[in-house]
């Protein structure tokens, strides 16, 4: 029985050997190397086209399997690939895999950054949209409530607060952008540029939207005072400054196809925004000075405003020298009070930020105001009168003494 089993097993082994030898004999060397080339190309494509770690999953094992499957045919494959070799191809594949793995790590980090950026932009857009809605609502209420002065004043205050919140919010966004992009090197810029192509929106577009909305607000605003327009001008100045600092990087990163065109577009929008503010600013400033009894010459720009101030102070100072009246002194006190408490005290910082007046221009006006201050007080005759009285008394006493002696 045992012998019979052994015989059966021997026959089975022999048959298996014959079958396997036939199977080996039925291979085509040409087909083997063709299959290797096809399998290799497929793996190269998978490695080269991998864009996520999911794509890479299992690839390393597949490369190992390719090597294991074809290593026994390496001499055939070497002959077919000459001057390359089987092991060089496998090594090349592994190097590609390693490079791809590193790239994907970088891409995934960038994707994470882009996702974060997009979330930030979405959040920003939503908040900005809420503020816009609130602003539009307040504007509508303001337009309707002209009859009720008290209510109108309250609404204006609310509208102003809304503008301030919006400025603060945009400033935070710009600060955030500056932190991210001001010191960004060219390599990171280029990496983000590649990833940013997948973004639906980008910071440059958001900035353009913000500028457009600011311009719109400046165009539509009414019932606002000079201080409000100066705040707008200051915000514009800050915006322009930020754009000067990071505009190049932002456009190169997020609009790499047409950075120059984008920069020009944003610059044009900034100019339009400033024009909209200026349309109202100079009139409102003139009104504010007039309301405080200060009649400045006409001005339509920062430089003509400074000229008008200078002319007013110099002419008034000259007038004080010439007439030396109490009235002139009152004019001086009025101007000095408005200049120090309102112009410099309340608006000073906004004027500097908005490039309406520089610190040196303010200092220049201060110097001229000082001269005016010296000339302004009316000179008193009391001392002269006292002197004359004293002289008369002395002469009287001398005459009396002389008369008594005689």
């Amino acid at each position, binding site marked *: 029985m045992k012998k019979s089993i052994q015989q059966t097993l021997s026959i089975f082994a022999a048959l298996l050997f014959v079958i396997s030898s036939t199977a080996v*004999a039925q291979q*085509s*060397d040409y*087909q083997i*190397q063709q299959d290797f080339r096809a399998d290799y190309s497929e793996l190269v494509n998978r490695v080269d086209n991998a864009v996520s770690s999911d794509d890479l999953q299992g690839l390393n094992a597949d490369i190992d399997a390719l090597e294991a499957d074809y290593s026994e045919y390496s001499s055939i494959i070497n002959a077919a690939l000459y001057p390359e070799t089987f092991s060089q191809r496998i090594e090349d594949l592994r190097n590609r895999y390693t490079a791809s793995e590193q790239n994907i790590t970088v891409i995934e980090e960038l994707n994470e950054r882009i996702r974060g950026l997009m979330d930030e932009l979405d959040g920003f857009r939503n908040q900005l949209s809420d503020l816009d809605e609130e602003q539009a609502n307040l504007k509508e209420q303001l337009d309707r409530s002209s009859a009720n002065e008290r209510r109108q004043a309250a609404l204006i205050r609310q509208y102003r607060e809304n503008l301030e919140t919006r400025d603060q919010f945009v400033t935070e966004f710009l600060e955030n952008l500056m932190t991210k992009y001001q010191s960004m090197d060219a390599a990171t810029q280029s990496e983000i540029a590649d990833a940013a192509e997948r973004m639906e929106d980008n910071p440059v577009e958001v900035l353009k939207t913000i500028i457009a909305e600011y311009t719109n607000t400046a165009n539509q605003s009414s019932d606002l005072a000079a201080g409000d327009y100066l705040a707008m001008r200051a915000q514009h100045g800050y915006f322009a400054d930020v754009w000067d600092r990071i505009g190049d990087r932002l456009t190169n990163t997020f609009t790499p196809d047409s950075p120059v065109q984008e920069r020009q577009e944003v610059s044009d929008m900034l100019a339009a925004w400033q024009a909209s503010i200026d349309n109202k600013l100079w009139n409102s400033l003139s009104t504010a000075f007039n309301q405080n009894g200060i009649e400045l010459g006409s001005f339509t720009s920062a430089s003509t405003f400074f000229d008008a101030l200078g002319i007013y102070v110099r002419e008034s100072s000259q007038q004080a020298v010439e007439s030396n009246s109490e009235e002139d002194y009152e004019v001086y006190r009025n101007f000095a009070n408005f200049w120090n408490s309102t112009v410099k005290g309340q608006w000073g910082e906004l004027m500097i930020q908005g490039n309406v007046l520089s610190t040196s221009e303010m200092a220049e006006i201060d110097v001229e105001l000082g001269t005016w201050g010296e000339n302004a007080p009316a000179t008193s005759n009391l001392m002269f009168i006292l002197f004359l009285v004293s002289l008369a008394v002395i002469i009287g006493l001398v005459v009396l003494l002389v008369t008594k002696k005689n």
Partner: protein
Amino acid sequence: MAKPTITTLAMCVALLFGAAACGPSLVIQNVDYAQPIESVLTPDSNNDVHDQRYAIKFNISNLLEEEGSSSANEIRLIRNSAGYYFVTAADFNNVYVFETDEGELKLKNKIEITANGLGQPAFNQRDGFIELVDLASGNTYNLNHEGRN
């Protein structure tokens, strides 16, 4: 009279030997022409096939005519270590063995394989012989330039 004639003859013989000695006589032995993997070549519209890797180009019209066939999608070509080319194709009954000559491939042998035509022939270079495999039928034939082993 006879002496100058003998002298002249001797000189002629010496000249002949000298000329022969100056002719090409360098022979390199044990050259291995073996092509490690067969070439699978697609004929163009003129039935020309061109193996760029092993630098050979020829026309297969005569071969097709010999096989009674009008066309072939691909022909399989391999060279053995002795330098003979083995050519066949699907539906061929034979393997043709050629030796090279100046601008020629001369038929050395026509090895009959099957009367029904080969299904999917493939040549493999093996140690000392060329292996012909018909992948369709599973048959294997060991060949050399003399015929089947």
